[in-house]
Every structure is written in C-alpha cells, then in structure tokens.
C-alpha cells in the first residue's frame, strides 16, 4: 500500500518535471501571454490589456521597425517594458521632442534599437535613456487577447512621423 503510494508520487514528480521543462522551453523560445500595465502605449495597448508575445523573432533577428516588443528594462533588470521599435541599428532617429523647435537627430548604434511608446506625452523610452541593446529584447507582441472588443492584431503606430526614412 505504501509502496503503491510512493510509486505514484514518483511518477507524478516525473511527469511534473517533464511538463515543467517543456513549459519552460515554450515560454523561453516560443512565446507566452503577457499582461501589460501602464499608459505609455495608449491607445494601441491600454492598462491591464492581455497580449500574446512570441520569442521566435528575437532568436531569428527578424524584429522590424514598427514592431511592438517586450524588453528588459535597461535601468531595472528585474522588470520588463513594452514599447514600439522606431529605429534599428544604423537608422536615423529624431532625439528631440515633437514640441521642440530645433530638431536633433542621431543614428542608432550597432547592436541597439530605438524604442518609443505610442503615447509620446506619457512615456519614458529611448528619448530618456537612449538606444537599447538588442540583447535586452525578450519578445515581440503579435496580438491582443483581452479586452475582447479589441481582439486581434495590433494597430500600426499612430506616430508615423517618428519613423524617418532614409
């Protein structure tokens, strides 16, 4: 009776470890569900929206200009931030605010990206802490799951003027 219970416990633990490993690999290499908080990506992503992010783009280096990405915060490695990619390495970006009279530009260094939130007036992003290393990108947000009335792929940036074409 005791041996039966012990056998069942070990089998359960075995399955738990296997499922745990598969789940870890899935979250690390494939993607997962993310709850977003904060106003910096409004109106595209509101506070407490639930989105699905995939990690394959980051491993295959297919992050594009205009993608919304989840990034480890450059100032606090324990937290993640969600912003839109405005420029990849080598791109020219506008570092001044839209309200400034004199516009300053710079080029994104190699191995970095320039991130900005969609809510330009209420977002701390690359305009504040500079270009972000590509290695900090965790995943790309593909589509929104919640709220249901906004289900589907994410809209393009409302700030098209921030994307400078060569």
């Amino acid at each position, binding site marked *: 009776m005791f041996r039966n219970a012990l056998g069942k416990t070990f089998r359960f633990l075995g399955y738990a470890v296997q499922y745990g490993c598969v789940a870890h690999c899935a979250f690390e290499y494939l993607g997962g569900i993310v709850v977003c908080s904060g106003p910096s990506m409004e109106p595209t992503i509101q506070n407490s929206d639930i989105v699905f992010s995939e990690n394959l783009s980051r491993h295959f*280096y297919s992050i594009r200009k205009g993608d919304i990405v989840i990034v*480890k*915060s*450059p*100032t*606090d*490695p324990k937290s993640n931030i969600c912003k839109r990619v405005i420029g990849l390495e080598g791109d020219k970006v506008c570092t001044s605010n839209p309200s400034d009279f004199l516009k300053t530009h710079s080029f994104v260094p*190699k*191995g*970095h990206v320039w991130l900005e939130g969609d809510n330009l007036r209420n977002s701390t992003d690359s305009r504040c802490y500079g270009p*972000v*290393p*590509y*290695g*900090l990108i965790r995943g790309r947000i593909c589509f929104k799951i919640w709220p249901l009335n906004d289900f589907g792929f994410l809209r393009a940036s409302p700030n098209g003027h921030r994307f400078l074409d060569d």
Partner: protein
Amino acid sequence: VLYMIKWMSLIIVFVCGSFFSICFLVMACNENDCSSFTSKIIKRVIALEGDIIKTIGYKKKYVKVPHGHIWVEGDHHGHSFDSNAFGPVSLGLLHARATHILWPPKRWQKLQPMLPPERKPLQREQE
C-alpha cells in the same frame, strides 16, 4: 556550456561583494564578428551601479555607472573590447558567472574574485 574565446582579453569571472568585483559573461554585440549575430563575451566586473571610476580610452575620463548597469573590463587592457569601448553594460544582458576553467586540463582552476588595485573605483556608493 563551453565557450570558445577568440579575443586576447583574459577570461575571468567573479563574484562580488563590497570588496571584490563580480564578473559575468556578458552578451553584447561584437563589432569584430563577421556575422551580425550577437555573441557572448567574458569580462571582469570592475564597478557596480553608482560607483565612479576612471576609464582607459573611453570617451569620458570619469564615469559614474548608471543605475541598473555595470562596468566590465578585460584583464589585458590594451587589447580588450570592453566597457572602455562600448560603455556601461545593462544588467539585463548578464548571462552567467564563470566559476572555473575546465580546458585545457593544465589550466584547471577555480576562478578567484580579484579586483586589480589600480582599477578600484574612485568612489563607491554606500548601500
């Protein structure tokens, strides 16, 4: 996982406290790489966030390491692609801490934390 070390900078990784430097494997984009893929580099941690250090060949002579960043240097200063080239490194890029050298067998050793005395920070932030 064994990493092949390509550069002349020395590999060392250490743990830290307030008197030692911590060294981690830092994942950063290496300009010497032919491909555009990021590769991992191994350096020694010289300063943590809040410390003020004197740099060797960096664009600013004195640097205060920003919050959430570290300053890493190779032990062979003249030939090292480290923070003196690309600046402070974000902690989120840290991958692992190297604790031992496994190969070649004649170099088997535990890597000891050791901060070179001439690279001590000028001012350490009190916790």
